[in-house]
C-alpha cells in the first residue's frame, strides 16, 4: 500500500540530495573547524599555484631586463621581497577562505537539520511498518493502545 506521508518525506529527501545535498551532505561529515581548516589549506595550495604562475608570467615578460641585469641584483633583498609578497598574498587568501567557508557551513546548517529530521522520521515510519508486518501493535509516543 502506498503511504502518502512516506512518499512526501522521500520526495523531500530526494530533492535535497539531488540539489543542495550534493555539496552540503559531504560538508557536514566534518566539524565546522575541521571543514574550515581543510578548505583554507586547499585555498593556500591553489593561491600558491596562482602566485607561481603570475610570477612566471612576469619573469618571462621581463626576461630581457632580468638577463641584462642578472649580475647587479641584490639577491638577498630580492628573495626577502618575494617571500614578503608571497606571505601577504597567502595570508589574504587564507583569511578570505576562512570567512567564506565558515559562512558556507553555517548557511547549510538549517538545511541539513531538516534533512536529518526527515530521515529520522522516515526511519521511524519504516520501523513501524516492520512491527506491523510481524503482527505487532505500534504504540506512538504519548498514546497507549489498549
Amino acid at each position, binding site marked *: 500500500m502506498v503511504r502518502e506521508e512516506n512518499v512526501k518525506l522521500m520526495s523531500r529527501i530526494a530533492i535535497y540530495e539531488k540539489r543542495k545535498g550534493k555539496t552540503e551532505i559531504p560538508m557536514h561529515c566534518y566539524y565546522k573547524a575541521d571543514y574550515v581548516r581543510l578548505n583554507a589549506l586547499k*585555498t593556500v595550495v*591553489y*593561491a600558491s*599555484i*596562482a602566485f607561481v*604562475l*603570475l610570477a*612566471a*608570467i612576469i619573469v*618571462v*615578460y621581463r*626576461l630581457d631586463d632580468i638577463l641584462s641585469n642578472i649580475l647587479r641584483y641584490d639577491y638577498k633583498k630580492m628573495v626577502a621581497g618575494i617571500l614578503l609578497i608571497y606571505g601577504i598574498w597567502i595570508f589574504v587568501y587564507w583569511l*578570505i*577562505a576562512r570567512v*567564506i567557508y565558515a559562512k558556507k557551513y553555517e548557511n547549510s546548517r538549517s538545511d541539513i537539520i531538516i534533512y536529518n529530521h526527515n530521515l529520522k522520521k522516515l526511519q521511524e515510519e519504516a520501523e513501524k511498518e516492520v512491527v506491523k508486518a510481524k503482527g505487532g501493535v505500534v504504540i506512538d509516543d504519548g498514546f497507549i493502545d489498549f
Partner: protein
Amino acid sequence: MTALLTFRDNVKAFISRYDYIFTPIGKGILALCIFFSISTQFGYLAVLSKGILLVLLALICAFLPLEIITGISAILIVLQSFKVSVDVALLSFALIMVFYCGYMRFIPKSGVIALLVPIFYVCHLAYALPVIIGVLVGPAAIVPMGFGVMLYYYEGAVADLVKVLAAATEDDEAVQGFQYVLAELVGNKEMILTIIVFAVVILIAYLIHRSSFEHAWMVSFLVAGVLNIVLFLVGSVTLTIEMSIGAILLESIVGVLIAMLFQFWKGIVDYQRTEVLQFEDDDYYYYVKAIPKLSVSESNKNVKHINSKTHN
C-alpha cells in the same frame, strides 16, 4: 500596470511549470553564444570553429552543470591559441589557471560572467554591462568582469600578433608572441580604464541598490548609468584615450533600461504601503521597514455551474 504584472506573473508561472524544458534550452543557448564568440574571436583552428561541433558541444552543455561551459571554453581558447604559437597557448593556459586558482574556485559560476563580457562587446553593449551586473550580481562580479574585459583585449592582442607574424619576413627579428601579447595588454590604457570604471560602477550600483531609502532601486540604476558615462568621459580625457562618446552614452542608457527590465522581472514594490515597525526582545531593539511587493493575484478558479433541472 496591472496588465503588465499579470503578464509577468503568467510568464513566470509558465516558465517555472516547464522548468525542466527551459533550463536546458537556456543553458544550451548560453553555451552556443559563448562557443561562437570564442570561435569568432579566436578562430585560428578551422576544426574547432566548425558550426556542427560547436552546436554539439552546446547540446552536451545543456544537460551538464554551468561550470562545464567555462571548462570547455577554456580548452577551446588554449587549443585555438596553439595554432598561433606554443608560447601564446602557454600564456592563455597560465592566465586561465590564475583566474581559476585565484577566484573561480570560490565561486565556480563566475566563469560564465567572464565569458559573457566579450559577447557584450561584440553586441556593442559593453558599457551597459556594469549597470546590469552591479544590480544583478554585485561585487562578486568585479573580478570575473575584469578578467572578461582582459579576455576581450587579449583576443585583440592575439589577432594583432597573427597579423605581425604574417607580415614578418625571414630577415626580421623573431617576434616573441608571449612578450608581444603581454606588452599590448600592459600598455593598453583603455583596458585598464574599463576595468577600473566597471569595478567602481558595480560597487556603487550594488551599495545603492541594497539601501533601504525609497526608490533605492531606481536611483541605483540611474546613478550607475550616469557614473558610467562620467567616469569613462573623465578617464578618456585624462588618459587621452580615443573612445566613442556616442557608444558610451547610448550603451549606458540601454544598460539602465535592461536593469529596469530585470528589476521588473524580479519584482517591484509599492512604497505607498510601506510599514515601519518597532519591537524588542531581551537582547535587541528591532526597527523594521516592510515594503509590500506589487503583484496581481490571478483568480485561477474553476467555476462549476450546476444547473438543477426540474422535471415536470
